């Protein structure tokens, strides 16, 4: 048991180290500019006074190292600085948006994960027959379209032609749970389709890989039914890669969310980020960027840890 704990602790420490370097990288991006940030924000026609004011407001008159540690220190204390555009604290605006984004991603994941595993199982059970081919064709075409276009196709079909669901996902706190889910029905569908394909294909591949083992043949020769072989014999050994793929796709979901939120004008982190990139509001972009990176790295570590836990062979390697 302690061996597992040690490996897990190692992974987490590695992740934290990575996050530290990512924060440097995100911060460095602002220094690598020709000229400086104040100039870029205000444009070429800015007066020297307004430039000096903005530089002082952003702390640009201090050396980069000092600024970096001030920023990092703020991050640890939940102080993300103020937005340049409206001067309000960023942390205030982030709270509700982060929970909205996680709400959307959570429900998409809850639907997509079991569905992907089930479809993967069906595809293996009917390998190379029509259910397998149908699932493959469907998933292949859904990953060939970018998220935002998939969103509009679904809006066109379910929102406009059939009129089943709202086409804009505006949430407010007075909505009941059911109303919220109804409002974000199409965004959830889009996200499910986006990650379903990858997860299903990898699940299928992972199980097929295991199905070629000798012990599966033994099980077949014993006369066990196909589905039972897959569930009882192939599944436990395919679990580790499947969990890995699921986690990586949840990390991918975080990116998909950005675009989908913009399409549906959903009040989440993604719209917040994109709006402020266009306004060149650097503190906001840095804060949201580091949050997305942290979630992404966190999910990757979780994937590592879970595959160590589910696959005993990984515990003793190295």
């Amino acid at each position: 048991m302690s061996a597992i704990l040690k490996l897990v602790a190692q992974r987490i420490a590695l992740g934290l180290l990575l996050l530290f370097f990512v924060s440097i990288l995100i911060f460095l991006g602002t220094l690598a500019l020709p000229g400086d940030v104040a100039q870029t924000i205000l444009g070429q026609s800015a007066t020297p006074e307004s430039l000096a004011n903005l530089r002082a407001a952003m702390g640009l008159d201090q050396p980069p190292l000092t600024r970096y540690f001030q920023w990092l220190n703020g991050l640890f204390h939940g102080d993300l600085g103020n937005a340049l555009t409206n001067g309000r604290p960023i942390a205030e605006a982030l709270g509700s948006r982060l929970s909205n984004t996680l709400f959307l991603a959570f429900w998409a994941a809850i639907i997509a994960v079991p569905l992907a595993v089930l479809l993967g199982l069906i595809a293996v059970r009917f390998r190379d027959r029509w259910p397998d081919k149908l699932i493959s064709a469907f998933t292949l075409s859904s990953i060939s379209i970018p998220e935002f276009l998939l969103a509009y196709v679904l809006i066109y079909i379910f929102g406009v032609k059939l009129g089943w669901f709202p086409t804009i996902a505006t949430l407010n706190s007075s909505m009941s749970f059911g109303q919220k889910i109804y409002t974000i029905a199409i965004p959830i569908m889009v996200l499910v389709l986006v990650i379903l394909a990858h997860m299903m294909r990898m699940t299928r591949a992972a199980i097929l890989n295991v199905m070629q083992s000798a012990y599966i043949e033994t099980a077949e020769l014993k006369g066990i039914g196909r589905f039972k072989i897959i569930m009882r014999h192939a599944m436990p050994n395919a679990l580790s890669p499947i969990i890995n793929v699921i986690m990586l796709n949840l990390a991918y979901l975080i990116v998909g969310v950005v675009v989908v939120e913009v399409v549906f004008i959903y009040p989440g982190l993604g719209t917040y980020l994109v709006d402020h990139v266009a306004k060149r509001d650097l503190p906001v972009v840095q804060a949201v960027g580091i949050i997305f990176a942290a979630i992404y790295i966190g999910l990757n570590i979780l994937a590592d840890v879970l595959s160590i836990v589910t696959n005993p062979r990984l515990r003793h390697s190295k």
Partner: protein
Amino acid sequence: MKQIPLSAAIGLFITGLYFFVALFAPWLAPYGMAEVVGEVWEPMSSTHWFGTDNIGRDLLTRMIYGARTTIFVATVATAVSFITGSILGFTASVFGGLIDQALSRFVDLIMSIPSLIFALVVLSVVPVTLPVLILLMGLLDATRVYRLSRAVATDINVMDYVEAAKLRGEGKLWIIFRELLPNALSPLVAEMGLRFIFMVLMISTLSFLGLGVQPPNAEWGLIVKENKDGIIYGIGAALWPALAIASLAISINLVADWILNRTTSIKGGR
């Protein structure tokens, strides 16, 4: 090169068609790129095959010029990504040691941030122009090419003929360009197809977010952005790019699959 399977032939034909349209856009397009020729959102007709867009420009013309921009950006960005990624990957594999460690850890670092998020962070401080976009997308994607080419080159680097070349005293550059590159080419070419699709998706996504190609230029993602309001009224103008991107992506996939199956069993990792 005995015979091309049907799926690959279809893929090649459609891909070729798109590149042809992209190259000869000004001659093929029935109207000028930003020319207003009719009412807002006219339906499909014999004069406007795809109808008109949100300010009355011919949609077929916009799609043709959009193909030109999208495919141009994606092609150049793919080239940037492959040249940088494979040279660095081969270098890391041939020189090994400190260079390899430094490059690989740096690539790990870049890849630990989702590329769209990274692109957005960078685009918040740099001017959004075509060269910047191409460079940004190319360099971000070079990380993936780096990993693949390093892995492939490391496999080849231990082959007998490479050992022989080293023993006869060839320089590192010779090893990279005369021994590694020719043998690593087929998995790299197959991967190139996938990277190209990724570039198409990326540039159209960025344009859709308003952070890519700027109007009045045409780009597939931008066409969606311009016409998205029509969807609520049941006007499908914004859905044409979906068809274009999906058919291009699928046909390139078909070609890449064929190249991969035909030439080698090494699968390019994603």
